[in-house]
């Protein structure tokens, strides 16, 4: 099974699996990532980082480092004259947040391993690292707390200058929870731990900054060049028009580069101070330590249900380990899960209560899915547990609770309106690929041979397309910003097209998908449409890429800008052909008067009319380009049904993923090749968390998983090929009907794998086990159950 057949209707490009326009430069080694840039005179930064999880800095002696010939400067917090600390951009109305100040260099005290204490700047990539080792820092260790439940007790304070470790409490609910539990025949409760993970983009972070004549240019491996420009401007007290941020080729993000990092600010600050370009390239060991982590939630989930499996109440209490500092969106992330705590079900009463707490670890923040994988994991694992409790088929429990396809738009108990869906439809399609009955027979047979095979399902919906400003903005959800996106579509005199998008891709394939959208609307070839992104000096303001927003928000902005250009095309052609603009249409690559195909204009010919406007009326503007800003009316809610099949070796505890089938619905495909790619990568991100990956700190706050040797990203050897399929249910929210798909695979996968592992382990007496299903953990659980 590969990509579904997409009809190639009348030369249209939307819907076709066009191979990517990005790839020629990437497969030949001609792409430009930040570390590929070396302006003449570039200086290098290296950091002196705390080996302690919590300590007072008693002295810093940089004299030996400064005595080195190729060291230019060593800076500590005292030298920094920044106008503001690092930002945290969430201020939910009516909620007090207990937030520590966070500066690019620690001020007198460090609060996690890797907290930067000093920065060394020198002439050479290697020697600046030697010099950093020559900086002698003395620390007076302070008590450390790494366990979030212990941290709640405030016996050890993460920041002794703050009254408590608790950052905030936040709730969202709807329906009558008490009544729901009262009318339930059974109530189950599970403690579900969603452990800490890393983003794991293969390109570590990198930044290069240069100032010339009062104008600052910063190249950064970031998902958010526009936000970075804003915060550089604020923190350096530099007028925003003098700051240009470029995100060149970015080697993956997965949320970990949706951040304003101190290193970015320092590079810019130092470049201005020293009058030379300054560059920093993170090592992988630094990335594991100081590129934000994700997840790390302990949930207590209670589900009330009727005997037939109908859920009457769903309550999740979440303790979120936020780490030592609140970065851009740190405390907000768990709340994103609360918006979909109904999953794809008609739960009459739903409640999410979140407590955020600090520990002496690095900050958590958005990692692929950001809150929604955690919520989906809770819901889907809990439903399987409920099914076992009731002696029902887990799919039957899901079917009984599905929001029916004819109920959309559907308002959930918490008042969120799901745009469109057909959950039964994706599940039916999944079951065309997975014969559950045959599986059960095989499972039985294999068990007799000592192989414990299990199947697990996840039916999910998620919330993406961030975001309607009125829903997420300062007076609503509390984000200190809007959620719109922008686009500029420019037809050149030759008919070639340049599109500027405010989104900032890092592997997704925007240059191809967006070109397909524009090519169809203007009547040209996608190869003649160039998409420019990731440069704040090019095109209108933008809000960058995260939260599966680029197509549903950014793509719609492009479609709208293209439609405005079409309106101009119509006017030029109508004037020339003495017809009414509304009668002009695109047919076979030519703009004609409806019904008279003999006379018409190709796009280059229309551009000629627009740019050599010899005979247009005085009140008609020449030129052929338009800008559009688009603020969505609602979020979009992609959905799907996934199945995982695993084998567990009871002798070793080793879990092997045998088969994975995914049916996703993100609306009509723009480019099915890109969708499949996003789904594959997303699945592995979730499978990785379920089976292999975990960020581990020991009790003293030391990072145990400091490299790719200890932090086990999945390799090709551990995985099977995947089977993917789709259904297409259009969203009414945007004109393309599209929803996001970048996070969907990750949101679904960990629960599907968890349920499969549990299905395999149940005959061995293991009824519930948390991720990650490492051999040791699984083996121990089997031994425990046998006792």
């Amino acid at each position: 099974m590969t990509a579904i057949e997409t009809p190639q209707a009348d030369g249209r490009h939307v819907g076709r699996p066009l191979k990517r326009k990005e790839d020629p430069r990437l497969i030949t080694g001609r792409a430009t990532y930040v570390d590929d840039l070396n302006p003449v005179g570039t200086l290098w930064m290296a950091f002196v980082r705390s080996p302690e999880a919590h300590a007072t800095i008693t002295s810093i002696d940089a004299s030996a480092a400064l005595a080195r010939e190729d060291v230019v400067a060593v800076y500590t917090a005292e030298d920094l004259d920044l106008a503001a600390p690092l930002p945290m951009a969430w201020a939910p109305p009516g909620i007090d947040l207990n937030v520590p100040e966070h500066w690019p260099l620690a001020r007198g005290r460090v609060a996690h391993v890797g907290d930067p204490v000093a920065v060394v700047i020198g002439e050479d990539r290697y020697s600046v690292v030697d010099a950093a080792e020559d900086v002698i820092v003395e620390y007076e260790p302070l008590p450390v707390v790494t366990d979030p439940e212990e941290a709640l007790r405030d016996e050890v304070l993460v920041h002794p200058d703050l009254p408590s470790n608790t950052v905030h409490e936040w709730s969202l609910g709807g329906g009558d929870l008490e009544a729901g539990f009262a009318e339930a025949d059974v109530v189950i409760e599970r403690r579900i731990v969603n452990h800490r993970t890393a983003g794991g983009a293969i390109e570590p972070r990198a930044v290069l900054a240069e100032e010339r004549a009062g104008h600052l240019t910063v190249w950064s491996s970031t998902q958010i060049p526009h936000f970075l420009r804003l915060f550089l401007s604020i923190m350096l007290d530099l007028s925003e028009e003098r700051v240009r941020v470029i995100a060149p080729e970015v080697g993956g993000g997965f949320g970990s580069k949706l951040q304003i990092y101190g290193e970015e600010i320092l590079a810019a600050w130092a470049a201005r101070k020293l009058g030379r370009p300054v560059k920093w390239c993170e090592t992988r060991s630094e990335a594991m330590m100081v590129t934000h982590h994700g997840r790390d939630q302990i949930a207590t989930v209670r589900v009330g249900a009727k005997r037939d499996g109908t859920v009457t109440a769903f309550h999740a209490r979440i303790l979120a380990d936020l780490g030592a500092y609140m970065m851009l969106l740190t405390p907000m992330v768990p709340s994103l899960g609360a918006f979909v705590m109904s999953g794809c079900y008609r739960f009459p009463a739903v409640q999410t209560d979140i407590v955020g707490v600090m520990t002496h670890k690095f900050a958590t923040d958005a990692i692929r899915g950001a809150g929604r994988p955690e919520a989906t994991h809770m819901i889907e694992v809990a439903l399987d547990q409920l099914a076992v409790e009731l002696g029902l088929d887990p799919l039957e429990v899901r079917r009984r609770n599905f929001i029916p396809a004819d109920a959309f738009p559907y308002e959930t108990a918490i008042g969120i309106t799901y745009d469109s869906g057909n959950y039964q439809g994706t599940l039916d399609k999944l079951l065309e690929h997975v014969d559950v009955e045959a599986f059960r027979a095989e499972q039985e047979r294999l068990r007799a041979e000592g192989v414990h095979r299990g199947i697990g399902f996840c039916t999910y919906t998620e919330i993406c397309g961030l975001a309607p400003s009125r829903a997420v903005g300062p007076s609503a959800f509390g984000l200190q910003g809007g959620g719109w996106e922008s686009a500029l579509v420019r037809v050149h005199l030759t008919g070639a097209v340049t599109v500027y998008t405010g989104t900032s891709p890092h592997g997704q394939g925007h240059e191809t998908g967006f070109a397909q959208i524009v090519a169809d609307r203007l009547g040209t070839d996608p190869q003649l449409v160039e998409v420019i992104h990731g440069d704040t000096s090019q095109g209108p303001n933008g809000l960058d890429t995260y939260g599966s927003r680029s197509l549903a928000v950014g793509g719609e902005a492009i479609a709208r800008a293209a439609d405005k250009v079409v309106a101009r095309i119509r006017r030029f052609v109508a004037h020339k052909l003495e017809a009414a603009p509304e009668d002009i249409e695109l047919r076979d690559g030519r703009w004609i008067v409806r019904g008279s195909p003999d006379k018409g204009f190709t796009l280059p010919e229309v551009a000629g009319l627009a740019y050599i406007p010899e005979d247009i009326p005085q009140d008609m503007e020449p030129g052929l380009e338009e800008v559009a800003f688009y603020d969505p009316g609602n979020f979009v809610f992609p959905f799907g049904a996934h199945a995982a099949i695993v084998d567990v070796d009871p002798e070793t505890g080793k879990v092997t993923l045998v088969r994975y089938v995914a049916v996703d619905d993100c609306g009509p495909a723009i480019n099915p090749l890109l969708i499949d790619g996003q789904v594959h990568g997303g699945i592995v991100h979730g499978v990785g968390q379920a089976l292999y990956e975990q960020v581990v700190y020991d009790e003293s706050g030391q990072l145990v998983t400091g490299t790719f040797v200890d932090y086990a990203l999945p390799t090709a050897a551990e995985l099977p090929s995947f089977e993917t399929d789709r259904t297409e249910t259009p969203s009414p929210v945007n004109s393309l009907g599209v929803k996001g798909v970048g996070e969907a695979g990750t949101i679904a996968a960990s629960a599907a794998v968890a349920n499969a592992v549990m299905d395999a382990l149940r005959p061995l007496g293991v009824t519930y086990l948390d991720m990650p299903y490492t051999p040791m953990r699984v083996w121990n659980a089997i031994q425990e159950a046998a006792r």
Partner: protein
Amino acid sequence: MSEVPVRLSVNGRTHEVDVEPRLLLVHLLRDRLGLTGTHVGCDTTSCGACTVHLDGESVKSCTVLAVQADGCEVTTIEGLADGDALHPVQEAFWEDHGLQCGFCTPGMIMRAVDLLAHDPDPTEEEIRRGLEGNLCRCTGYHNIVRAVKDAARHPHAGRIPAPGVSADGAGAGRELAQEGLGA
């Protein structure tokens, strides 16, 4: 630090450079010779983003000292295509959407070429095991494995430089390209 002379051939061109004894081959290639297609993704020889060919075998160039490459022939991703003619493995990665952010891709392609040189007709399992030392966070490997499988159908997929110049190689290359779905 005192420097030592190194003479090596990279993508068919001879270079004589003086380097610090500790300079890694990857940094010689990137920072001194300007061949930035070879990437660095880790500091523990785990990711394979830095994979190049050293005397015809794929190696992780972050784990080779420049001085160790003295007298050797190095091929990097920049030396894989034959002018405008892509190497069959490059072609297959493009056709099969075997890359997203592209950061792992040069190393992945160099590793795949070596894999096919040693095993021209690998099974899926052999491909997966053969790529074990190269990490990709974007693709989930599905399309990478597919690309290597497809490239294996080309008679010279394990050969460097690109075999498009030979008659049968060029024919097979065209065939592959035509089967592709894209524009």
